[in-house]
């Protein structure tokens, strides 16, 4: 096995990565997950430890009629990267709900490539980022629909909330479609907390940081809605939000 060279900035999937930090954990071991035909499984990836760098690369095969529910909470590392490649068989379902919550000079990224390689597969991706300080949060998500994969139903909802003027959000939902009868939706928004809402909550007695936390909690909750361990994920997210506001 030959050593894999460290990616450079020219490499699209690593365009916003902290390459110096990545070098410390390179090469990234590939983690294979197979969901056999007709089965359904779920996985929660929780990266909350304050380490210098973490990089994961999941390669998921969801066979015909199977479903896989993946939730990600990416909050801890100075550089935290989670890459997910999913290949969907006929009628398979893939769900991704991810939240990245960063402050200081954290660089957090989620990079996905979902391949609809047979007809009738469904993919749903919800990614929510909350970024304060000088943090950078990135989502690069490609949905590739192969020739003949009719009846594909894919959705990407990507939103980021900036808590400071010095934080950065990058978002690139991408579609590559080679089939005719498909439904591929993607939405993407970067914004700040609604000032009217914040004042409304404060006028009822909530201190500013509690008001922010309440609004952000609702924002992040969209990523974990329906998860098997929804409460645990939300509690961990809330803890991190408390530090960020």
């Amino acid at each position: 096995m030959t050593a894999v060279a460290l990616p450079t900035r020219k490499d699209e999937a690593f365009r916003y990565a902290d390459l110096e930090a990545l070098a410390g954990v390179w090469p990234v071991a590939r983690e294979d997950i197979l969901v056999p035909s007709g089965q359904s499984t779920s996985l929660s990836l929780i990266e909350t430890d304050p380490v210098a760098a973490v990089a994961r690369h999941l390669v998921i095969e969801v066979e015909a009629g199977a479903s896989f529910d993946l939730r990600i909470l990416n909050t801890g590392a100075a550089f935290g990267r989670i890459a997910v490649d999913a290949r969907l068989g006929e009628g398979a379902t893939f769900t991704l709900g991810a939240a990245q919550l960063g402050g200081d000079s954290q660089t957090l990224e989620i990079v996905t490539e979902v391949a609809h390689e047979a007809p009738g597969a469904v993919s749903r991706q919800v990614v929510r980022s909350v970024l304060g300080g000088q943090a950078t949060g990135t989502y690069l998500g490609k949905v590739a629909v192969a020739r003949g994969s009719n009846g594909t139903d894919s959705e990407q909802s990507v939103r980021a909330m900036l808590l400071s003027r010095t934080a950065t959000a990058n978002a690139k939902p991408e579609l590559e479609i080679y089939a005719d009868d498909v439904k591929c939706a993607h939405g993407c928004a970067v914004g700040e907390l609604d000032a009217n809402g914040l004042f409304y909550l404060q006028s009822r007695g909530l201190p500013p940081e509690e008001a922010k936390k309440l609004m952000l909690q609702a924002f992040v909750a969209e990523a974990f809605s329906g998860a098997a361990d929804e409460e645990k994920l939300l509690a961990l997210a809330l803890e991190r939000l408390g530090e960020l506001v």
Partner: protein
Amino acid sequence: MLKITNLHATVANKPILKGLSLSINAGEIHAIMGPNGAGKSTLAYVLGGRPGYEVTEGSVTFTPNPRHPREGGDPSPAPDQTQGQELGSRLRGNDEGGVDLLALAPHLRAAAGLFLGFQYPVEIPGVSFVQFLREAANSQRKARGEGPLSGGEFLKLAREKAGLLRMDMDMLKRPVNVGFSGGEKKRAEMVQMGILDPSFAVLDETDSGLDIDALRIVGEGINAIMRRPDKGVLLITHYQRLLDYVRPDFVHVLAGGRIVKTGGPELALELEEQGYEAVAA
């Protein structure tokens, strides 16, 4: 209870309030009427402490009443109240009990007993009324050095106040104001007021967007919650209709950023008949 003296305020550097003075005693309900652009909503926002509304001159002194115990008594205070007590003393004010309202952050104004009813209540997706109001009520209690309401106590209180405004309790489980009609939002404001139990309420066009039945329910709600010897209300309105239900002790006409005329309830009728221009001239 609320004493506004020579208040000047600007919004985006444009002077809106130009020397407004007004004094409201406990037990009184005052109505402020006036043409569009007179500064009515600006007054409400300045009192509430909304960012962007800058006071350039004048003062507002608020004398919060000592909290009256709730029916059934307050729950015993939580053991660790050090922080709460510090804040509590800040809300007790000077020797006469008055606090400089403008020096307090919006959430502390609320804790001191001020309630601002919004002309346009804000929708907050994903946050339920029940969660928001319980946290708000307990934040206020903490700032005053009181113990928190338990989930059960809070729900009992919420159910009672929702009933008062004929609002289905299920609506309070929904996200704050999301999908509510104009009238429902205003009724929900009054439910909030009932739950938070302020000693002084500034109600900014609470009557707008209400049909005849809702207007009566809201009017009766205001009376039930706020018409007490230890409470005060400032009603901001365009129309006389609400005043049929909530009878004011004083009516003021606001024009050009200051009070130009003050009278009794009959002044509202006079305005309705003759218009602002004739009366305020």
